[in-house]
């Protein structure tokens, strides 16, 4: 069980290392996107930090960078979650048939994706830091991690529930666009309205803005924000558990008899 967990954990990380498209997006698209935002943004904007009951006035550049970071990282990592599920479903079921523990498979994949999400959040925060000095790096990275983890879970769920890759991609693109767009007062009149509180990137956005622009922190938002990741994650894992089931585990069989009663 432990050796199977380590094999899954290590090889899941290796799989992500070979995900050239996602890495290229992070290395090229993210800085290019930030450079475009920096070139085009001007003026100031108000943003409401509800945990502290204050409104911050900041440059559109800073707020756009933070929104752009969440939008880009949630999209990329949502696709990663989706592709993990779409590409590995049949072979994961085969591994289970060969005697691999489903628990070890799930846990190994989950821990690996969690680690990748953490690295992506830290990298994206570093990128933003190149454009302006964020006040609290850890808080911004933690807020980004919460958003990314939620979208990895959403991607995994979409990969199991939706019928094809295209449906999954469209679902993640539309959800991430609507979700992160709604949080940004530059484009959305509803950004300071209570309705945005019901979207997955609401708490991460509150966290990254507070961390980047103020010296305040509300760490309960981190744990509450993880609720989205945990909720979607549990649904995705339940679906994964169901999809990798076998009538029996072949590799461990000595003598087995199965009766199917219909």
């Amino acid at each position, binding site marked *: 069980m432990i*050796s*199977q967990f380590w*094999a*899954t954990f290590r*090889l899941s990380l*290796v*799989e992500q290392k*070979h*995900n050239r498209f996602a890495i290229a997006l992070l290395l090229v698209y993210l800085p290019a996107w930030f450079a475009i935002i920096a070139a085009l943004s001007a003026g100031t904007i108000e943003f409401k930090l509800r945990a502290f009951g204050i409104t911050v006035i900041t440059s559109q550049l800073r707020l756009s960078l933070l929104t752009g970071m969440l939008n880009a990282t949630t999209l990329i990592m949502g696709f990663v979650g989706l592709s993990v599920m779409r*590409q*590995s479903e*049949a*072979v994961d*079921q*085969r*591994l*289970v*048939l*060969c*005697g*691999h523990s489903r628990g070890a498979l799930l846990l190994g994949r989950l821990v690996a994706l969690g680690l990748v999400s953490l690295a992506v959040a830290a990298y994206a925060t570093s990128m933003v830091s190149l454009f302006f000095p964020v006040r609290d790096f850890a808080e911004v990275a933690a807020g980004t991690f919460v958003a990314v983890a939620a979208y990895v879970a959403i991607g995994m769920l979409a990969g199991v529930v939706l019928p094809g890759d295209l449906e999954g991609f469209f679902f993640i693109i539309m959800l991430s666009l609507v979700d992160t767009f709604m949080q940004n007062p530059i484009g959305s009149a509803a950004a300071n309205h209570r309705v945005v509180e019901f979207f997955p990137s609401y708490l991460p956005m509150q966290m990254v803005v507070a961390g980047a622009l103020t010296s305040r922190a509300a760490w309960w938002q981190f744990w509450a924000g993880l609720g989205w990741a945990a909720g979607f994650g549990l649904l995705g894992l339940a679906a994964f558990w169901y999809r990798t089931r*076998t*009538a*029996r*585990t*072949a*590799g*461990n*069989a*000595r*003598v*087995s*008899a*199965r*009766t*199917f*009663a*219909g």
Partner: protein
Amino acid sequence: MNTQPSLAATDVARSFGRRVVLRGVTFQAHTGEMIGIVGENGAGKTTLLRIVAGLLPASRGHVEVRGRLGYCPQEPQVHTALTVAQNLEWFAAAYGMARTAPADALMERLGFERYRHVLVRDLSGGTRQKLNLTLAVMHAPAILLLDEPYQGFDWETYQRFWALAEESRRAGQTIVVISHLFYELARFDRVLRLRDGVLTADLSA
């Protein structure tokens, strides 16, 4: 030949909605026996093998398996973003094997050891199929289920495959091969035809 079969399927039926695929399939395979199951496209061969392997529940019936199973699916089910060696390592962990040495020997026999550190997505279809087969047999199972195992093999690999299968059978392995056509019926102890959801004649008789 042992009287106790290593594999016994009794009255196995399977429907998908209203479509009846298997109507009541019964067959047995003994230690050291090589059985071929032939049928047209869509006859239900893969469904039958998936039920026997334990991947799919039957709607009705009973399957008894004595010993470890090895299952080679028709389409290579491998991690395409990993190398050949990494796939072997992951399956070795699944089988509870400490080393991949038996798989290394099989890679040499099937002639693809030079691709050990190549990503599977960069391999040809035939080489992927060699890996697919190796993953099914690397733990030396007592019973081997092969679904169209030599698809994409060149002639030389096809011959190596049969040499390997023959050797395994002589060592006591029970082998069930399904295909939509067989060129060499003499290689099998029995060849059964799956038609309209039931197994019929022994074509090798």
